[in-house]
């Protein structure tokens, strides 16, 4: 474990650059998951409740996109946001916003697909009752989202885990700019390429611990609130 020491020393000494990297990783990935949830949860719920031609195809696609390669998403967003691309005028390539967009696209299918599955199962149970209570389409979606909130939290965590751990997309659209778009994963890639394996490994430990802590926290929150909210 001595290899990780240098990074732990950095943490212990409250190294500002390292803290900025950790903070940026969290901000980017949490924002991406929030955006993806705002879009993906209603999308998954609508998909669960509606029937239309091509729906099955859409679901298959959505499930398939859960495994989108980050570099491909990164490349697509890069081409969109590049000055020579369709959205180039906004000048957001190589900014945290570009990274959020890329990660949100990466995470959106995961959240939407898992939400669709969860909500469709619950809808099967609730359909007659909600119909009998004359609940409209929006009310149905709201009720189903709320009542499956604990399962959906797992979907959000899955999305967050994917976002915080990926390197391909943020590297391409963020550019790994020191102090501006450098995240934990791109820093690990950089330190590895500089041959500073102990520091890279130490950053890796920190990343893993961070993911574990967040998952444990969410799990605890879930157990606690399930008891309180009477599931």
């Amino acid at each position, binding site marked *: 474990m001595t290899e990780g020491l240098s990074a732990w020393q950095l943490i212990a000494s409250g190294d500002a650059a390292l803290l900025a990297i950790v903070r940026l990783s969290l901000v980017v990935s949490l924002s991406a998951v929030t955006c993806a949830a705002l879009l993906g949860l209603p999308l998954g719920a609508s998909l669960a409740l509606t029937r239309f031609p091509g729906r099955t195809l859409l679901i298959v696609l959505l499930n398939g996109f859960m495994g989108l390669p980050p570099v491909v998403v990164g490349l697509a967003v890069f081409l969109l946001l590049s000055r020579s691309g369709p959205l180039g005028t906004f000048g957001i390539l190589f900014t945290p916003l570009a990274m959020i967009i890329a990660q949100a696209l990466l995470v959106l299918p995961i959240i939407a697909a898992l939400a669709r599955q969860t909500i469709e199962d619950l809808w099967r149970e609730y359909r007659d009752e909600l*119909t009998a209570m004359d*609940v409209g389409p929006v009310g149905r979606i709201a009720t189903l989202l709320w009542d499956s909130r604990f399962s959906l939290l797992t979907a959000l965590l899955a999305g967050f885990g994917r976002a915080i751990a990926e390197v391909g997309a943020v590297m391409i659209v963020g550019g790994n700019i020191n102090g501006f778009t450098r995240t934990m994963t791109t820093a690990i890639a950089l330190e590895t390429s500089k041959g500073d394996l102990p520091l890279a490994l130490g950053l890796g430990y920190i990343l893993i611990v961070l993911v574990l802590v967040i998952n444990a926290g969410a799990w605890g929150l879930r157990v606690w609130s399930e008891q309180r909210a009477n599931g």
Partner: protein
Amino acid sequence: MRAALSDLPLTLDDVSFRAGGSAILDHVSLSIEPGAPTLIVGPNGAGKSSLLRICMGLARPTSGIVTWGGRTESRPLRRAFLFQRPVMLRRSVAANVAYGLRQAGYPYGLRRNRVRELLDRVGLLDHADRAARSLSGGEQQKLALARALARDPELLFLDEPTANLDPAATRSVEEIVLGASNSGIKVVMSSHDLGQVKRLAGEVLLLVRGGVRERAAAPVFFDSPSTPEAAAFVRGDLIL
């Protein structure tokens, strides 16, 4: 917020219902008027559930016309439905009732007291903040009743609500149903249970193979059934 229009009388005119190629209901015509509870009896597969669902508006007939108070389209604002297996929202007992009130457009500020009254009515006051899904089967059915009554229904449909319940729970559900009926709610309920029919029925409607075989006021039905199937039911025999 509340439709002033009445859903009664409810009429079915030559209603048929087919599912998966087989006829569930076969040219049924009937009218449901205000009054004492109507009990729908008949063997399994006779079409009792489908009849109730069509009356509620949950299912559309394959052919024929359903009217509520003379209207062919009517949102279930003043109708409520109790399923054989109650559906419990994943919330507290009180929140389940509050949900029903909100769906019925009950004013926000008055909901808390109304929840209390309704839970008191079904005897679940002490369980208000428990998880609805942690209740026993009988308690769940009583909660479903409270939630249905939260809609202030004019018509209450019950699809074998006590089929899975023990005698004690059955008894309290029946008491609540009778109370609802006495307060002016028209109860339409299917049942397997001869004793229950005797205890609750104002009139009895016997359904056999998707058709109305016999319909009569309860005393007439039990004293002088006019069809062999009704006679068999009254004797406690199997109807085939």
